């Protein structure tokens, strides 16, 4: 029971901090606070999704940036056509988030399905590399999309619209992103503890045992992979709306690596740890860049130290400890 309590307690503390932080920062004259928090929340959404398959399924994807970029590109491209007055296969387009976002998520799910199906034929290092390969392919496709700006990326003239929520208002946008994060974490938590989740985790701990209990590994891993792709895609959608432009940058291996680093930093298989990881990683990057342009000379060794001594990331020990006995 204590594990449940620790998760709930940590989750509530984080939520309280994320709710209050912008209000507190607004009292100071630091204008970068809200955008920084928004970035943290969006990244958190992506890395929580990644943690779902790495932490609970040992599926180390080095290509999750492809879903991040796809989510963003789908909304940006559709918005672009709508604003240009083009029709898309006879459809005049829309700017409504309620329509565009599910569409983008569907695209991510389909890509996840295809990539997952092929990649899950391999394991371990080969899985890491084949996901990377697919992400690189997506990256090169995006770079070669001349019509959508190619390497320079595509501007969005406005954010999507949503009934009764002003996405253009930074406060409303932040709290919307935060709400989505909360919902997503709760959903992931539900999955982890579900009948599906039990099997999925069993596959990580002992595939042979699970198979001899009659489990066919592929559908379970594929389902989790697709769910993870959708979550990362949602983060991409939010990112596109936050930044109001998308670039192939979103699909580089460095971005995928960043996601991996954040998950590890926060603590694998904890769902909440990666959120703390995102806050620390992005916060640190922000603080260090303000301090010196040679910030990497500090950031680098910090990552090394975390890998060497933070055996389970920042929150791994705490959130995983105290279970059974």
């Amino acid at each position, binding site marked *: 029971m204590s594990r449940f309590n620790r998760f709930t307690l940590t989750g509530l503390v984080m939520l309280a901090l994320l709710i209050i932080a912008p209000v507190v920062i607004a009292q100071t004259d630091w204008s*970068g606070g809200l955008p920084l928090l928004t970035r943290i929340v969006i990244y958190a959404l992506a890395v929580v999704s990644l943690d779902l398959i790495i932490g609970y399924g040992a599926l180390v994807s080095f290509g999750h940036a492809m879903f991040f970029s796809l989510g963003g590109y789908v909304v940006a491209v559709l918005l672009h056509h709508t604003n240009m007055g083009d029709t898309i296969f006879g459809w005049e387009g829309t700017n409504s988030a309620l329509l565009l976002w599910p569409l983008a998520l569907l695209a991510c799910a389909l890509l996840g399905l295809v990539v997952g199906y092929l990649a899950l034929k391999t394991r371990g290092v080969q899985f890491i590399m084949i996901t990377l390969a697919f992400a690189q392919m997506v990256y090169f496709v995006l770079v070669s999309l001349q019509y959508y700006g190619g390497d320079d990326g595509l501007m969005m003239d406005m954010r999507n619209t949503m009934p009764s929520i002003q996405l253009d208002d930074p406060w409303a946008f932040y709290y919307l992103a935060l709400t989505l994060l909360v919902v997503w974490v709760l959903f992931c938590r539900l999955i982890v503890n579900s009948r599906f989740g039990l099997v999925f985790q069993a596959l990580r701990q002992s595939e042979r045992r699970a198979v001899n209990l009659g489990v066919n590994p592929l559908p379970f891993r594929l389902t989790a992979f697709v769910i993870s792709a959708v979550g990362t895609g949602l983060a991409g959608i939010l990112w596109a709306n936050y930044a109001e432009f998308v670039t192939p940058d979103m699909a580089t291996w460095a971005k995928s690596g960043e996601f991996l680093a954040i998950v590890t930093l926060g603590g694998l298989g904890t769902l909440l740890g990666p959120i703390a990881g995102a806050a620390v990683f992005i916060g640190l990057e922000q603080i260090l860049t303000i301090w010196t342009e040679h910030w990497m000379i500090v950031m680098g060794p910090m990552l090394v130290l975390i890998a060497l001594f933070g055996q389970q990331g920042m929150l791994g020990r705490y959130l995983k400890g105290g279970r059974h006995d």
Partner: protein
Amino acid sequence: MELKGKAMRVGLLATALGTTMVAHAAAEALRIGFITTLSTPAGYIGEDIRDAFTLAIGEDGRLGNTPVVLEVEDDGLKPANAKQSADRLVQSGVKLFTGVNFSNVLAAVQPTVMKSGGFYVSVNPGPSVFAGAKCNPNYFVASYQNDAFHEAAGLAANKLGYEKVVILAPNYQAGRDALNGFKRTYEGEVVEEIYTKLNQTDFSVELARIRSAAPDAIYQFHPGGAGINFAKQYDNAGLKESVPMLVPAFSLDAQMVKATGDAAEGVYASALWTTEFDNDASRDFVKRFEEAYGRTPTMYAEQAYDTANLIAAALDAVDGDIEDADAFRAELAKADFKPIRDPFTFGPNQHPIQNYYLTRFEKNADGEIVQTVVERIAENHQDAYAKDCKMD
């Protein structure tokens, strides 16, 4: 010497404390948002831009007569970071921005600044998106429109009498723009159009294709390290002697020439300005820059210095008050100052109408490779997008 010491000190301060540089911060100092790329291998360009701008500000912390504070932010060549910085600076009340070094970063920063009603004056990139239908009254480009060097190179190729050429660029937007710009003005035959991979390091395959096509010359655009690699390998393959190479200025800037060595000798480039410009303002600038920072200024440094002086002239005309945006805009648009390169005027899209030169990398008396001016190839050249720009 006095100046050198001060400038060094200011430069060092900027390096050590990063980013917010306070030069004699008076209470009323005008804050200028200066977002540029300092980290990453391309950071040397950002350093040149920042340092030249700082040099223009001088030891008294004034741009013209107006006390200013440069709010320098490193974007790390990530548009998202730059956008973040722009948001932050806009919210803290900054109204005037400059410094961005790359088109994709500018694409992230410019709209944010425009939305806030602030001004942006570009020190380097002039992407076509903002030069045509999406031009903006508060957006000025004090350098060049992105296609200009390529168009000038096309004219140069005509003048040099090349009848068939092979053209190469990396397969991304700027690369495609480059080759299209060249083809717009070039009158001969393009026998082969080769797109290389982004971040490609080895060009042996492309060199073999060039050799077999046996053109009169090649035109190639590869920025940064790729440009150096290309020039070195081109020389090593023995092609430089038989097939002349023409490049836009930023494919071989002063720093890149050092890393390219003798392989750069004999290469032609289209340019706005070089260190060998024959006028006092230019010589003085090169001397001061070298004294202050111990290195040769690149074309980017010159552009930043001119941008600073353009802003200085406009500020002086409005007594440092940019709250009256209309007045400040009108003064900027006059371009009423003496640049180091040839004087220019602004077209309707507020991009420069200016002269371009054909230059050649040659050894000087000291055996150093310098960029000598061959001849003027374009007079009062205007970009192709100006006609699409309709200011209100």
